[in-house]
């Protein structure tokens, strides 16, 4: 019971902070790039921020589900998915989409480091919770088998 609430709330808070980082805590670069036709498009980091909002939302939902579901196996599955979502959150700014080319741009200076640190915490916490639940499940099975 205690683990259910604790793990769910921690995951949900981490997800919420990931969601809020590109929105208001450390926003991505706001300036636009001028295209040859005279129009303007957002920079790459803007789209990385958008993707991270989705990642944060998924982790937040995972946290809520961890509180709702009582079954150890379901919570184990949710924790594993949250850990993998955390990995996705790390890959978005580094490999999958990326950001600006200069280290001193707001996205490279604050947004991405904050997101990477938070996603590392999600991966570490969710993996730890998954291992804990897996051991719990093993104990329950041993008890039922006699």
């Amino acid at each position, binding site marked *: 019971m205690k683990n259910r609430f604790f793990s769910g709330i921690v995951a949900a808070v981490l997800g919420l902070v990931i969601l809020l980082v590109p929105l208001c805590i450390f926003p991505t670069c706001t300036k636009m790039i001028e295209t040859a036709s005279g129009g303007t498009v957002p920079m790459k980091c803007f789209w990385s921020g958008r993707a991270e909002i989705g990642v944060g939302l998924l982790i937040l939902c995972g946290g809520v589900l961890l509180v709702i579901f009582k079954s150890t196996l379901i919570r184990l599955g949710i924790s594993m998915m949250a850990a993998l979502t955390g990995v996705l959150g790390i890959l978005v700014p580094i490999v999958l989409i990326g950001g600006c*080319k200069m280290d001193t741009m707001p996205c490279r200076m604050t947004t991405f*480091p904050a997101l990477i*640190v938070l996603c590392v915490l999600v991966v570490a916490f969710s993996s730890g919770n998954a291992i804990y639940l897996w051991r719990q499940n093993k104990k329950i099975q041993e008890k039922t088998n006699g």
Partner: protein
Amino acid sequence: MDNKPLTTVNLSVKNLKRNPFRTAGLIFLVSLFAFTLFGGTVLSKSLENGMNNLSKRMGADILAVPYGYEADIQSALLRGEPSTFYFDAGITEKVKGVEGVKDVSPQLYIATLNAGCCAYPLQLIGFEPKTDFIIQPWLTNSLDHLLGDGEIVVGNSINAEAGQKLKFFDRTFLVVARLDKTGMGFDTSVFMNLSTANQVARDSERLKAHPVAENENLISSVMIKIENGYDVKDVANNILQAYAKESVHVVVTKNMLSDISGNLRGLTAYIYILAGVLWVLAVSVLLVVFSVTLNGRKREFGIFRTLGAPRNKLVKLILCESSLISLFGTVAGIVAAALVVFPFSTYIASLVGLPYLQPSYATVFVVAAMSFLLSFLAGPLASAYFAIKIGGFEIYTVMRENE
């Protein structure tokens, strides 16, 4: 049923789990100290490193700038803040004629409005490759030719490699080299020869009037190296006396560096004082908490003794509990500091506004090891006295004490 053997470690873990809030509080206290010590030391070492690098690589003894722009040249050099200030290019030759001056090299600063790599202003620095003794010694890959028209060298924080092309004011430039990490403003600057810089100024005219586009005979500063045997102050005074009327002012780099190192010393002292205060606080709080809780647990220890536990088992138990608290706190504090100091290093550098260069892995490892040791010692040191005192109690006295 838990079938774990009653080893000292297992018993200590169980005792710590019995009071989760007290244990968490003590771990937090130790982690706060470890965080401050490790994070603060890495921060001060990075600033020290940046300062050493700056003084080692600052090739000029004197900088000649237009009157009133002494602070701007420091911002441009230290933080790469885009600056635009100009005086007549003829000053270069005039300064060269002053007694005691060995080499001179002009530089021209142009701030971009936006660039292909980034939509933020960037400092473009034009220099004379033939006379330059400031920029070229910092190149990561040596150039086999003097920097030509249309070619640029980028600072280390600009993510472009040799062979790539960058666009400024709709003109494409070829990146031919990249500078080493300097920890100062040069990391975010782009370098080109003077004629290319003039071209960029003309290109920028379509967006905003630029003084260099109107008059090509302008430069921003002159880097000056003095002859051996001359006093830098005397040469600077000579330049001032001769050309102050032409709005020339001088910045002596040694004075600039000593100002920065003065600030740095103050900051480092604050960090170490804070770490020292936190260490004393951590040891004192642990001392009080252990004294209170261990006094309250005398009966428990009496039962252990009655059940056959030798005196040294009790001493080990108490020391093990405090060591575990210290261990968890120290690891948590160092990991938390690492998660702040390393990923956010550029942000910290921009907040501090001083040359910032992270130390080598070996130095970081040594700092981590020292922080670990100092932080870890807090727990066992605080509990050692009580551990020995409890170990020396007579069973009968201890058991009857609370009756």
